[in-house]
């Protein structure tokens, strides 16, 4: 028995070593950093141990702004993208002709580089000395006032960021949902048809429950992904996000480490842990909700 245990540990060693070095140790280190007050990485000195870093971060207006941005982004893009993806998947599922073509088109953003997509959005929204951007051109046709989406009012920038995020995450969700819809057995629909079930009732009573595990999966990963947003913001508004007022929590962590005002691993760690706590609790709530309403797929 003991010998076998030894063997088992031996087999596990490579994985444990890797996880230990690259996951567990940094995690512990982050916690330690976040508790070290006045830590200086150059001189390796600190003034004390406590919760000051958390207090600082939570009072930092830039962090509050980043927190607000992130929550708005999450609250808007997760339901919007999941709902849109569901609508598009249903439409894709019900057409026969050109389905493959549309599937390919919808999947394109997934294989496109984030920054390249950012460039496209620049062309659509950016207002320069030479052009107002495509969207503004349209607004002008309808007689509205032009808006600077990239460098203008907060709501305009947030709108662009949300659109951008939705557009980026949509392909994956469509992919998952179309395959989930395709895996619902046709017999259920036939049975419902023989019983004269109205289309909407078929959707709410049969389709939706059948694909609900996949929807929950998308919502949970969607929440996590949106909380970790950073590159989308950079692609649209450049690296100086605090100045643009469009920073996110991850962006704040990055700035605290490497940005112009950086060099504060303690503040960065505290912010990262706050993000961790938020994501963990939201995911727990999601799992609880999904467990209550989940069904066995068939």
């Amino acid at each position, binding site marked *: 028995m003991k010998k076998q245990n030894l063997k088992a540990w031996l087999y596990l060693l490579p994985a444990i070593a890797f996880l230990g070095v690259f996951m567990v140790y940094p995690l512990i280190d982050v916690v330690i950093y976040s508790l070290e007050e006045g830590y200086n990485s150059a001189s390796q000195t600190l003034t004390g141990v406590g919760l000051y870093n958390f207090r600082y971060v939570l009072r930092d207006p830039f962090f509050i702004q980043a927190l607000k941005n992130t929550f708005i982004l999450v609250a808007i893009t997760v339901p919007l993208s999941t709902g849109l993806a569901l609508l598009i998947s249903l439409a894709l599922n019900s057409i026969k002709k050109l389905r493959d073509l549309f599937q390919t088109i919808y999947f394109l953003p997934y294989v496109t580089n984030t920054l390249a997509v950012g460039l496209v959005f620049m062309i659509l929204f950016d207002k320069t000395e030479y052009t107002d951007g495509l969207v503004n051109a349209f607004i002008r046709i309808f007689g509205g006032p032009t808006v600077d989406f990239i460098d203008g009012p907060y709501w305009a920038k947030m709108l662009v960021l949300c659109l951008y995020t939705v557009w980026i995450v949509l392909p994956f969700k469509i992919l998952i949902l179309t395959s989930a819809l395709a895996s619902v*057995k046709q017999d259920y629909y036939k*049975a419902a048809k*023989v019983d004269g079930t109205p289309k909407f009732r078929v959707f709410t009573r049969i389709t939706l429950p059948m694909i609900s595990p996949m929807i929950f999966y998308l919502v949970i990963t969607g929440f996590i992904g949106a909380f970790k947003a950073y590159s989308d913001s950079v692609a649209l508004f450049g690296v100086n996000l605090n100045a643009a007022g469009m920073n996110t929590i991850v962006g704040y962590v990055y700035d605290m480490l490497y940005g112009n005002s950086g060099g504060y691993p303690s503040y960065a760690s505290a912010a990262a842990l706050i993000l961790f706590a938020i994501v963990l609790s939201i995911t727990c709530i999601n799992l609880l909700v999904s467990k209550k309403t989940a069904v066995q797929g*068939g």
Partner: protein
Amino acid sequence: MNVILKNLTKTFPGRTSKDKPVTAVNNFDFEIPDGKLIALLGPSGCGKSTMLNIICGLEDPTSGKIFFGETDVTDLPPESRGVGMVFQNYALYPHMTVRQNIMFPLQNFRGKDKLTKAQMEERVLEAAKLVRIDNLMHRKPAEMSGGQQQRVAIARALVKLPGLLLLDEPLSNLDARLRLETREEIRRIQKKTGITTIFVTHDQEEAMSISDMIVVMKDGIFQQMGKPQEVYDDPVNLFVAKFLGTPAINVFEAEVRGGKLFIGDDDAADVPDVKDGPVYAAIRPEGFIPAKDGRLSCDFISVEVMGRDITVLSSNAACENPVIRSIVDADNKIEPQEGKVRFNVKRHKLFLFDKETGERIRFKVEND
């Protein structure tokens, strides 16, 4: 409610433009009498399920008409036809309980047909009691056996009181013991409700055992319809003769010469008024009488004792089947001589078929 099918044809386009279109149902024409249990019988891929789907409205016929009683339902959608359908894999909604599954069709009623909650509950309980699952109302389909799921599916089909019940391969997903039990159950439910029922099967034993009438089809073409025993005793062609009966009928290549049937060199039976020429002679396993001076001689292989009767296994060069199975009464003593066993043939168990078309060639059977 009787069902009338008139020149029903269904063609599916070929997979590619080069392929020929596939005719699943070809010019079907028959009437299903009211209140009977009908088996639609044929080998896999012969268009039985397509037929069922057309009757219930899930598929449109390419041409032809369907009448339920006096009404032409050809262009009606399934929900307006008032049919209950039980699918091969039951298609029970896995996220709903038995009660919710059975209630589902009732909740679709709109307008004047709309039922109150109490009426629904009553109907659901009634249907569940009929199929004897009223003690499982709160189970989910995954928590039940195949046989129980089958019953739920039948209850769900019956709860809206349809004029016609359709069952697609109702027993194919069950194990042997349950199959026997369930087919009697289907018979019982059909008798009790008196609802016209059509079920599809490829298992001839299943079809013969419980149905009032069987309809045999092959490659989308109607072959024969009748009471099971009638079809068995009087097949119209070689296909029907071969398809019905276990053990299978024994088919010989034979020739008629001067009113006598020759199998190999043996003058096996008298077949008066049959034109000379090559034929297929098919003899049911129970059509052999062992006799020392029998007219048909076969190479003896062995004897299987079943108690009540025995099966004699033998072979004959002219026989299509590798082994001739003949079931004879256990009182008979089988004494092969020089490796040969001899039989006389009961002529009402002997059928002749045209060598080319496989159509039945009839001859007079007097007293046997």
